[in-house]
C-alpha cells in the first residue's frame, strides 16, 4: 500500500507498507492493527470513505470497501492537499 504524504505520520514516515486481506475492507482492518488510528483518518463511522480521501487499487478508483484485491495489487491512499 502506498500512503499519502499527510497520512505518513501513522507509518513512521514510511511511504509503502504491507497488509493482508482479500478486499479493501480487510486490508484496511489489517492496516489499522499495524498502524492504529490510521483507518479512522480515511473511513468514517458509517464505513464511508471520507470526502477528502480517495483510494485506488492500482489505478482504479475504489467506490466500495468490498472491492476485491489480488496478491501483488497496490492500494493507494490519496489525500486532498492544501499547499500552494
Amino acid at each position: 500500500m502506498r500512503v499519502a504524504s499527510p497520512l505518513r505520520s501513522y507509518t513512521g514516515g514510511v511511504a509503502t507498507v504491507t497488509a493482508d486481506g482479500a478486499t479493501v475492507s480487510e486490508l484496511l482492518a489489517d492496516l489499522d492493527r499495524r498502524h492504529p488510528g490510521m483507518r479512522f483518518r480515511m473511513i468514517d463511522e458509517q464505513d464511508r470513505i471520507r470526502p477528502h480521501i480517495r483510494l485506488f487499487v492500482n489505478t482504479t478508483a475504489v467506490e466500495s470497501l468490498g472491492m476485491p484485491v489480488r496478491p501483488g495489487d497496490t492500494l493507494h491512499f490519496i489525500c486532498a492537499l492544501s499547499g500552494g
Partner: protein
Amino acid sequence: MALSADERARCQRHLSLEEVGVAGQEKLKAARVLVIGAGGLGSPSALYLAASGIGTLGIVDCDRVEVSNLQRQVLFDSDDVARPKAAVARERLLALNPAIEVVAHDLELRASNVREVLDGYDVILDGTDRLATRHLVNDACVLLGKPLVSAAIHRFEGQVMTYVPGRGPCYRCLYADVPEGLVPNCADAGVLGVLPGVLGAVQATEAIKLVLGVGEPLVGRLMVYDALELRFHEFAFSRRKDCAVCGDRPTITEPRDPPQACDAATLARVRRLAPGELRSMLDAGPVLVIDVREPREFAVDHLPGAVNIPLGELRERLGEITAGAEPAFVCRSGARSLRACGLALEAGIADAVTLEGGMLAWSAAS
C-alpha cells in the same frame, strides 16, 4: 492577433514547433490566463506563461511577500519582502515580457467576487493554499464553463488535475468536501522548495496545451508526484453523478463561501494563555492538555501528560473529553489549537483554553 517582429524573435523556438507555429503563437497572444495564488505554484506557472507569450495574465493574491516565501516563490527577490505579492508579480512578469498585459488582483477570492474576477479569462490555474478556496474556484469554473488546472503540494508530494467543461470530472468529483483544518498547510507541515516548481510547470504546460488545442489534457486523471522517490503516479477518476456542482442534480448553483470551521465570534471568545499562564495552571494541579498536532510532530516533543488528538480527528473524538474537564489545547504555532478551542466551545465545552503561540512560544519561554 498578429505578432510583432520582437514577438516573432522572442518566440522563435515556438514558431519552429509544428504544433505551435505562427497560428499557435497568435492564439497564445490572444489568450487570457488567470493564476490564483502567487505562491510556490503560481510563481513558476506565471513566469513560464509570461515567457511563453500569453497575451493577458491575471494574478490573484492578497498577501505580502514574507522572507519565508523566498525558499520556493521564485517570482520574488529579497528586496520584495513586505511588498504586495500581486503588484510585485506584475512588475516581475512585465520585466520578463513587456509585450504582455498583466493584471494584479490584490484581493481575497470570495463567493461575492469570484464570478467578476474569473469572467473574461479563458483558463484558470489554481495554486492557492486553502482547500476552501479550491472548492470555491472549482465551483465557479464549473458554473462559468471555464477550464481549470488545479494543483496542490505537501512536503514532498504534489497533485495536479485538469477540468475541461463537458469533458470530464471536476475537482469536487475528486474531493467532495474538505473540512478546513483537516489537512495541514505548508507552514505547519513544511514543503520542499523545488516541489512547486515541478507542479507549477505542469500547470503552465496544461494551460498552454488548452489554449493551443493540442495534446491530451489531464482530464479524468489525477497526477501525483512523489519527489522523494521521483515517481509520477496517475489515477483515473470519473465524473460523479451525485457531484454537488457538476452532477446530474447539482445543489450548488451559485458560488458560495464555505462554512467556517468556527465563526469569528466563537474564536473571539476563546481564552488564550501565554506560556507562563499555562505553566502556572500545570503547577497548580492536573490539567487535561490535548495536543492537536499530527502524531509525527507529537512524537518529537510534547508537554508532560499531554494527550494526542490530531485536529482532523477532534470533531469525532470530543466525546473523549470528560464532562467538567477544562482542556488546554496545544499545537505548533497556536493556529490549530485555536480552531480546536472553537470546536470545543461549539460542542459546549465552555472552559477550553489555547496555548497562544503553541509549542514554539513554549520553547522560547522555557
